[in-house]
């Protein structure tokens, strides 16, 4: 039996239906949390003095966009930490694993179900930020946002960071024995990539095209290989029986 996108789709549709009816996910994780994360960038944007030096403006934009990059880092981690251990705790993992599904299909279905709404929310929030900038920011700030490489960086790093966050969250979820522990660990696990982006935002690490491409390539590699690594950590027997022979 080969890899089946039909089975991936079955998991994806089930997950999206489940999120749609989960108030915590819809209200807190997908709505309130992103809205909280857009407040600081918007204030940064609107409070900037018109006469501010261009280097200060650039730093302000970097900080604002860093906040927006927290959305693809944090939102998926809240959900992905639940994916395996949550199913196990509610008793739904065993019926799923009894079917012919392969662990790779299960994991990719789960990952896509987190990635799709995360991208919708993250890009919607970013679009809102750009709209506010276009309408209300002073010309210097507008120029700093739209003329530089900030927009392509944001567009590229949003799915890459989300991918990292999802695979790390699922890996932790597959090895944890408690949902709360899994959620806390997966938030911490997102600190390394966010820290690098933050250091670039504050010019501690000088941002350059080479560094950005290198970081993007590293994240892309992790994302592409993530499902293989997580699949290797997905021990059907330990998850079902709670023990290993």
């Amino acid at each position: 039996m080969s890899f089946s996108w039909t089975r991936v789709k079955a998991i994806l549709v089930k997950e999206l239906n489940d999120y749609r009816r989960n108030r915590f996910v819809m209200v807190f994780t997908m709505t309130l949390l992103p809205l909280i994360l857009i407040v600081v960038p918007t204030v940064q944007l609107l409070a900037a003095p018109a006469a501010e030096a261009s280097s200060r403006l650039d730093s302000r934009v970097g900080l604002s966009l860093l906040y927006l990059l927290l959305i693809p880092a944090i939102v998926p981690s809240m959900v992905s930490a639940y994916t395996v251990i949550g199913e196990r705790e509610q008793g739904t993992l065993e019926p799923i694993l009894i079917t012919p599904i392969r662990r790779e299909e299960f994991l990719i279905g789960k990952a896509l179900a987190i990635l799709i709404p995360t991208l919708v929310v993250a890009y919607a929030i970013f679009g809102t930020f750009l709209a506010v900038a276009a309408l209300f920011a002073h010309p210097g700030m507008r120029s700093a946002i739209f003329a530089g490489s900030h927009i392509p960086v944001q567009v590229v790093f949003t799915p890459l960071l989300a991918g990292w966050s999802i695979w790390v969250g699922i890996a932790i979820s597959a090895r944890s024995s408690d949902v709360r522990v899994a959620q806390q660990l997966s938030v911490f696990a997102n600190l390394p990539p966010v820290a690098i982006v933050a250091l670039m935002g504050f010019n501690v690490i000088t941002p350059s095209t080479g560094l950005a491409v290198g970081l993007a390539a590293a994240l892309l590699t992790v994302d592409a290989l993530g499902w293989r690594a997580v699949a290797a950590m997905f021990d059907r027997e330990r998850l079902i029986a709670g023990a290993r022979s």
Partner: protein
Amino acid sequence: MNGLDETTAELERTSNRDHSGGQAALVVEHLTKRFGERVAFDDVSFQVGYGEVFGFLGPNGAGKTTTVRTLGTLIAPSSGSATVAGVPLSAANGPAIRARISIMPESPGLYLRLTVSENLRCFAGLYELDDIPGRIERALRAVNLLERAGDPCGSLSKGLRQRVALARALLNDPAVLFLDEPTSGLDPVAAHDVHELIVTLRERGVTIFLTTHRLEEAERLCHRVAILNTTLRLVGRPDELREQLFNQALEVRVRDSLEDPGAVLDGLPGVDGWKQSARGGYELAVSDPEIAAPAVARALVGAGADILFLAESRHSLEDVYLQLIDEDVEVKRR
């Protein structure tokens, strides 16, 4: 050919769901599973024919669920071999085996925010079934739940959730249906409903592997049963097991005790021995009740006794089970 083989062969002849040209649905040979030092089950061997309802009995912790999970390829055996629905048990054959079977775990494991229909649609997709709406309708009709298809599973009672889980297990028309404690935690009415569903499936020729510790359930539903207590203690039809463990006996009660029971009962045809029973009657060990019973009746009447009761002693499956488990406890104590 022993009794076990005869039963299997008969079931194979009469089954209308023989998916493998006459082979047994399950062939288990010396299967063992250990978790470190702990032995879940040891050296288990049995066969189940297509169309057979096979009961797997044992106390909590006997290894019943682990056996089901092992045969369902969720857990790898430590040693031994098995063929499940015609496919040799191995990790590589896991998806192929799981496509041919269904397991209904003890807990229904439904997505409570999703409707009954959405739950089933997800699993139909996982089995890559065609005509998904038709399959769902047939499965829900089989468990009398068609009118609740649009209800969220969270709004259903425990008994109804169990029925949804059974419908889910029927979606892929499995060659072997494993039911793991299907009535656990259900009230008598809900348990009775599940029993009726199993009877219906049995009449349709579905091969069922039923784990339970409800002995009346096994006795009522199963063609054959196995008793597991880490090792397999017995396999056979319930009446065979009774005969293997207990001597045949007649129970006699008379209005007034016999003055000299030995003079009346000793040496009667078919009677091997007798003893006074706790209820003031007599319990007779017999080689053939059909020969012994008339002889005993004639002897008692001849001795002037008024017979109140004369019948073959019936040992239940529960007696068999308790006898075996008591033996195990006794062995461990020594």
